[in-house]
């Protein structure tokens, strides 16, 4: 789950990580009030889940509360077009923060290193830049520490990394406390990513998270009721948000062929087959194990919310649940909806033929192999 910068900063502050003073605003008036409260210059920052915000005009400096209000008015309700989101992301909130003086900009990041099966802490003196670019052009400028999950990040590890990365030596003690607090925040909040870029050293020797990016492990949300309110805002696509609410794994892909299947790998393969057959998948949707009528109905409803969808391909492998039962579930689920686009149903595995036989004469288009199903759905939607 992606959370917004202002939310990440709320989480960080809770664990003793220093962040600039500030608050989030949903209206220009609120923005002005916050700026008045802070006093002095402020930055107005669009709260969107897309990188490259600054270059797209999503971060603006305001000398007066009046100016902060104007920036907020310009941003809230507008769309931000960034290289990562060329289609534009709507802005509904802005973060108003005190403008901080910058002596140095560094980079701090913590994420899971899948290959080593432990968290990796990354420190670089090349802050403010795209870290992937740094990794490509100056890999030696990123210092990495792998953390024992039971022991956590030890202060000496933080110091070593900071000295090795070439952080200003007088700032290391403060930065080390910042980094161990950041690691604590990362683990305590079950994050899968915590990135401070830039990590700022001010002229008077303070360390601050000028920007903050955090992703939370969805699997761990059950033990974080405090993130309940963040969840609503974590998904920007309205259909994906609705799928979230229904507990269904749905990803919008932009094409015109709806895809429903059981099992992530099988659904991904289905997308691949449809692409090979010349079609453009509208979505990824995994209904998981079994195929209960209720779930099928829900899934189909979601897929059809996308107005571009011209046809739907069902691809289900009957494993322990037999193919004929799966077919019945699909029929029951579908019969509750008035579907106006063609549906191709591909059933495989245990008792697949019996299942396909049940679909005869229903107006649904049966298929035996994935290849055949992909070809048929591409034909009928062309």
């Amino acid at each position: 789950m992606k959370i917004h910068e202002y939310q990440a900063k709320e989480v960080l502050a809770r664990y003793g990580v220093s962040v600039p003073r500030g608050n989030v605003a949903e209206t220009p008036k609120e923005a002005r009030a916050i700026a008045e409260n802070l006093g002095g210059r402020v930055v107005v920052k669009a709260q969107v889940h897309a990188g490259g915000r600054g270059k797209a005009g999503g971060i603006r400096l305001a000398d007066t509360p009046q100016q902060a209000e104007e920036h907020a008015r310009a941003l809230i309700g507008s769309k931000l077009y960034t290289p990562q989101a060329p289609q534009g992301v709507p802005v509904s909130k802005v973060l108003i923060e005190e403008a901080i003086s910058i002596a140095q900009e560094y980079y701090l990041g913590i994420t899971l290193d899948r290959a080593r099966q432990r968290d990796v802490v990354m420190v670089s003196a090349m802050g403010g830049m795209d870290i992937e670019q740094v990794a490509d052009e100056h890999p030696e400028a990123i210092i990495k520490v792998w953390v024992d999950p039971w022991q956590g990040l030890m202060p000496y590890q933080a110091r070593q990394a900071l000295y090795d990365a070439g952080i200003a030596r007088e700032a290391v003690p403060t930065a080390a406390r910042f980094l161990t607090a950041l690691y604590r925040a990362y683990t305590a909040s079950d994050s899968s990513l915590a990135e401070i870029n830039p990590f700022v050293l001010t002229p008077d020797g303070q360390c601050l998270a000028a920007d903050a990016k955090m992703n939370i492990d969805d699997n761990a949300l059950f033990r974080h009721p405090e993130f309940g309110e963040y969840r609503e805002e974590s998904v920007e696509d309205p259909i994906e948000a609705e799928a979230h609410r229904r507990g269904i794994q749905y990803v919008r892909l932009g094409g015109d062929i709806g895809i429903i299947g059981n099992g992530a790998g099988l659904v991904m393969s289905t997308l691949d087959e449809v692409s090979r057959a010349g079609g453009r998948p509208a979505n990824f949707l995994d209904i998981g194990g079994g195929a209960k009528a209720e779930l099928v109905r829900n899934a189909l409803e979601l897929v059809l919310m996308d107005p571009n969808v011209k046809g739907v391909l069902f691809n289900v492998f009957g494993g322990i649940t037999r193919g004929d039962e799966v077919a019945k579930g699909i029929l029951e689920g579908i019969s509750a909806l008035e579907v106006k686009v063609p549906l191709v149903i591909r059933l495989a595995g245990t008792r697949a033929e019996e299942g396909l036989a049940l679909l005869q004469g229903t107006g649904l288009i049966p298929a035996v192999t994935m290849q055949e199903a992909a070809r048929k759905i591409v034909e009928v939607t062309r």
Partner: protein
Amino acid sequence: MAVLIDRNTRVLVQGITGREGEFHTRQMLEYGTQIVAGVTPGKGGQEMLGVPVFDTVRRAIQATDADASVIFVPAPFAADAVLEAVDAGVRLIVCITEGIPVQDMVKTVAVARQTGIRLIGPNCPGMITAGQCKIGILPGNIFTTGPIGLVSRSGTLTYEIVDLLTKAGLGQSTCIGIGGDPVLGSTFVDLLPLFEEDEETQAVVLVGEIGGSDEEIAAEYIRTMRKPVIGFISGRTAPPGKRMGHAGAIISGRTGTPQAKVDALRSAGVPVADALHEIPDLVKQALANRT
């Protein structure tokens, strides 16, 4: 004994009295698996499908000499269940549970690896040695005995492939679903050596998908293998940054792209199928080339 399990494996089911635990215990018993014990705290002394239930894994092992455990415990408690099994000294642990927090697994996998206890999963369908022993939720009826080993990050996709193999007359030795999470008890490279050494296995099908770099790491090991490996990668049209279903299947930045995986495997001499239905033919060719 094929890979890791055979007809002599004595299996313990953690979470046997739950809905999933009970359902799949029945399925495993029907397949012929020796289920010797179940564990559900508070239900010790009861029986489930004729299997004695214990309060703790330690007691179950003391009473029954179980040497493998399969875990159907709900996600919030699953890591603790794995650690209990590790501490009790079970040789093999298969964790079916999905939705376990990544940090729990990072900690748990670290302990399992340190002790040398084999953990399969989590978020996996389990494993099967065809005709002998099934541990997990794979549909036993699609398997048939034969010389093909299979190791996969996927569930239903694996069944699909097994189904294709069986229909093509290619039976299986052992099939292992390693799971779809970012942190796994056993990765491809942990398991390929077991297939390489297994007398029942003549060729191995490796089913990968986007996310992580397990396939790339496996490719390096495959260079040293004598037995042929045939590959398949799903998610070749998946966009970066979008999580496809489970937490493992996501292309983050420049890692986890399907092309890198296909390239790594091919450069290690692995025939990689572009479409599922090509797999049986590639396996047959590999077997033919071998002799």
